[in-house]
């Protein structure tokens, strides 16, 4: 048995729980991005003309669709990891129960991050599919965006796991939710081009991971110019959050 076997076992446990309540799972996974899509893409999008992004003319629906892909990764990845893992760790004590079998805690935590990221990627891929079917996204670009989606979802899943590890109570998860996740949702270029913000806010936004993920998603799916710093920002956040979240959760559980 390898470490991968242990990760797979726990991942399958989470998938099995998701599968058992598939209706609830599908509703929570897909309804939210679809609501944003209909509200902003079709509703607001019909009132707004073209958006010029780095010299590329886009319809607002195209512009917002790519933003919703990235926003879905963040919301689904973060919330599943923050609330889901807090419940599994604190209330259900599932991590503790599994970590005394041949599966180690390290494998349990990898499985947690990968599951949360898988679920978020699954959810975002539906928005990508809709964008492709409607002809808003380039089909090959949409396909190429899937690995980016998984990387982005992993980043936000790690952020969620870190928040769960650091929160004494489930209510405390609200602080980073309102102080970090919602500001990213509003100011990282999902709804409007960053160029419309004052320059200091643009700098701040570029330091946050969602901006780079939004930008790279638009590059891949809509052909907007690549901004090379996105790779550095995404890699830096991933390199920081994944080990930090795992270490924080291990420290929380192991005395």
């Amino acid at each position, binding site marked *: 048995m390898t470490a991968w076997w*242990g990760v797979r076992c726990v991942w399958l446990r989470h998938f*099995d*729980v998701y599968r058992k309540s598939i209706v609830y799972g599908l509703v929570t996974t897909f309804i939210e991005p679809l609501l944003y899509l209909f509200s902003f893409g079709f509703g607001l999008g019909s009132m707004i003309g073209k958006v010029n992004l780095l010299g590329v003319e886009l319809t607002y629906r195209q512009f917002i669709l790519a933003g919703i892909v990235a926003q879905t990764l963040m919301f689904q990845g973060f919330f599943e990891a923050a609330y889901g893992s807090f419940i599994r760790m604190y209330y*259900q*004590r599932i991590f503790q*129960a599994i970590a005394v*079998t*041949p599966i180690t805690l390290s494998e349990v935590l990898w499985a947690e991050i990968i599951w949360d990221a898988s679920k978020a990627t699954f959810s975002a891929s539906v928005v990508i599919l809709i964008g492709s079917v409607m002809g808003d996204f380039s089909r090959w670009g949409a396909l190429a965006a899937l690995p980016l989606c998984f990387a982005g979802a992993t980043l936000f899943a790690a952020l969620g796991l870190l928040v769960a590890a650091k929160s004494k109570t489930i209510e405390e998860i609200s602080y980073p939710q309102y102080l970090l996740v919602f500001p990213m949702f509003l100011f990282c270029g999902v709804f409007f081009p960053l160029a419309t913000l004052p320059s200091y806010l643009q700098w701040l936004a570029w330091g946050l991971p969602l901006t780079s993920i939004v930008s790279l998603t638009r590059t891949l799916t809509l052909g907007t110019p690549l901004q090379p710093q996105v790779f550095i920002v995404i890699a830096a956040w991933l390199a920081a959050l994944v080990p930090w979240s795992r270490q924080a959760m291990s420290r929380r559980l*192991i*005395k």
Partner: protein
Amino acid sequence: MDPENRPEQPPLIVRNLHKEYRIPGGSPLRAVDGISFEIQKGECFGLLGPNGAGKSTSMNCITGFYPATAGEIRLLGYDVFREPRKARQSLGVCAQEDTLDSDFTVLDQMIRYGTYFGRRVEVVRPHAESLLERFGLKEKSHDLVESLSGGMRRRLQVARALISDPQVLVLDEPTTGMDPEVRRVLWDIIVECRGRGLAILLSTHYMEEAQRLCDRVAILHRGKILDCAPPQELISRHIGEEMVEEEIRPGVKWRRPSNLEDVYLKLTGKHLESGGGE
């Protein structure tokens, strides 16, 4: 040498186990202070002590969940910290807290838990069904854990610990909070497991439980083993008399058989229920 090829050795060996907790801004808290013992096949070994004596910390180190500050723990010859996967392949654990997976039904959770030991579903299913029957939970097989009473949940947790056919069974206060009838059912199961050759480590603060079930008992106080022997031998060694006189309320005395609590009181000056560990 591969542990399987070594001459017969005790399934569980604990040598000079130390465990200190980091206290932010303070000196480390010593929870376990150099305990050593071995458990043979078919032996039930009890750790007896009040809350805070170091029982659960010792258990968590033995299962490999907490790293030891110093010392060695071997399960079936494998070092539990260096080779956790191999060591825990033959380990069954019933933690003090409820760790049942409330997302699954009773049967599904047994099967799922069996897969964590690398067992195939078709192999583990009949075993899970027979365990549920043995533990009186067959009727509840398709119910969610949430619908079970406290006693049933505890029985399920012990049943789940047996799903991998372990050779070492760790039971951390398995009967705490149970009513006397359910406690006796669980005692019978523990006796049966011992009869089948399992090495059982049982922590408890119930002296009657320790006296009935354990072949040997270690009296644990502030992380140290004060003495370790068969219950009757401990009583003879430290109390000597068969009957002791006790004042049950001011002016009312009665004579009763001496027990392990008297031993604990003699060794530590404190009662088991008084939190003598701190």
